[in-house]
């Protein structure tokens, strides 16, 4: 685990660049993290990000694509358009949360 500086702030990240302390995240940071992976955030992105944050606060686990779709109301198809190729991973990265457990 290391630290890095984003937007002039020091945050803790893992070796893949994911924030390791969800409390260090805020919406400004999300915009910067999204830019780093080539995504410009729209209202639709924010709907998914805010669901992920709220759900994590209650469940203690990062929601899967199915959960974001059935509980959060953003269809999987849309998630693939918003966060191309790897929506689960990219969404967690932008939301400052751990990668969803690929349940073994």
């Amino acid at each position, binding site marked *: 685990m290391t630290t890095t500086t984003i937007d002039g702030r020091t945050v803790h990240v893992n070796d*893949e660049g994911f924030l390791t302390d969800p409390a260090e995240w805020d919406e400004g940071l999300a915009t910067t993290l999204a830019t780093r*992976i080539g995504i410009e955030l729209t209202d639709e992105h924010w709907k998914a990000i805010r669901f992920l944050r709220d759900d994590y606060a209650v469940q203690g*686990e990062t929601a899967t694509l199915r959960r974001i779709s059935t509980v959060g109301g953003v269809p999987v198809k849309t998630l*693939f358009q918003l966060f*191309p190729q*790897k929506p689960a991973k990219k969404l967690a990265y932008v939301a400052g949360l751990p990668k969803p457990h*690929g349940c*073994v």
Partner: protein
Amino acid sequence: MRHLVILGGGTAGTMIANKLRRRLRTDEWAITVVDRDDEHHYQPGYLFLPFHAYSRDEIVRSRHRFIADGIRLVYDEVDRVSPTDRTVHLGSGHTLGYDYLVIATGTTPRPDQTPGLLGAEWRRSIFDFYTLEGAQGLSEALDTFDHGRLVVHIAELPIKCPVAPLEFTFLAEAWLRARGLRDRVELVYVTPLDGAFTRPVASARLGGMLAERKIDLVTDFMVERVDPDRKVLVSYDEREVAFDLLVTVPVNMGADFVARSGLGDELQYVTVDKYTLVHPAYDTIFAVGDASNIPTSKAGSVAHFSTDVFVRNFLEHVEGRPMTESFDGHANCFVESGDDKALLLDFNYDTEPLPGRYPFPLVGPLSLLEESRANHLGKLAFRHLYWNVLLPGRPVPLPAHMSLIGKRAPHSEEARP
């Protein structure tokens, strides 16, 4: 008289019933197991059916034979559970009151969840091998398959026995090679994960084994639908994978009554505390085995290890004492790799599968994450252990908790999303 009701007489339900019958006084406790039929399937055996290594008789036994005397077995469907008045409503209209309920109804492949899967090609050029009928149908299809694209596919995680699709692929590759057909068949492995397996060390090792065998790996593929007319898989991001023979692992879900009873998550797995397996809102309800939402493999080994922990906790819990045992998510899985060899994985909630030895650290005789004939023999021997030791609830000399001794973690690589 107190009443324990166990829904599901599969691996977890049978072990729990038999272990608790020995520990709970017969003049104080009645135990009832509910299941829909009298067929107990040794599910790991499905994998070998397509390659004629097992017959039906070795896989299917009568369920009631494995349920000990003093346990009532009711054949019925479960309509729903009313947790507030502690009643199970059965499909026949009968009800069962309980003091404690254990939900052990497992997980089920649901091909109906992917549009097109149950279309005209189902069980013609599309097969699953997680049901007896699917595995038998696949056996016939493989007998006549002599060229083209064989695609092995996982729809969504979690699935029961997450290594089984890899094992099927390795076995199919060896089978085709033995029949002199390997050069005429393109083998493709399609997964929603970003590698061959979930956790990094095992994923790299198993991915390397796919590459060595010239099996194409298609990653990050989340299937949206199947087009049976064109025989292609279509992903949510509009990628396509064509097949001549598709071996798919459909979406897995818990039982429908779990959702009807308001006890489950979005895949109908019962929400429980991952250390004690008790439901967070109802301390009279537990879920053990594949039916629960704990973040570890859906596998018989997990059912077995967690049952040991559950039984000790349950005895404390019903006496009104705090539960002192904690399940660590321990799982181990044999991975058949073809040519009469296998690997063994051993892991838990916190530690990914790593190289080492099992069951005795440093000594073995089984080696972790490495192919060996001993591992293959271990896997085959396990079927006898299952029927004769595990299900009757006899002690198995394997520790419930995972050991870290002698394991080493290779350094993880830098990566970006």
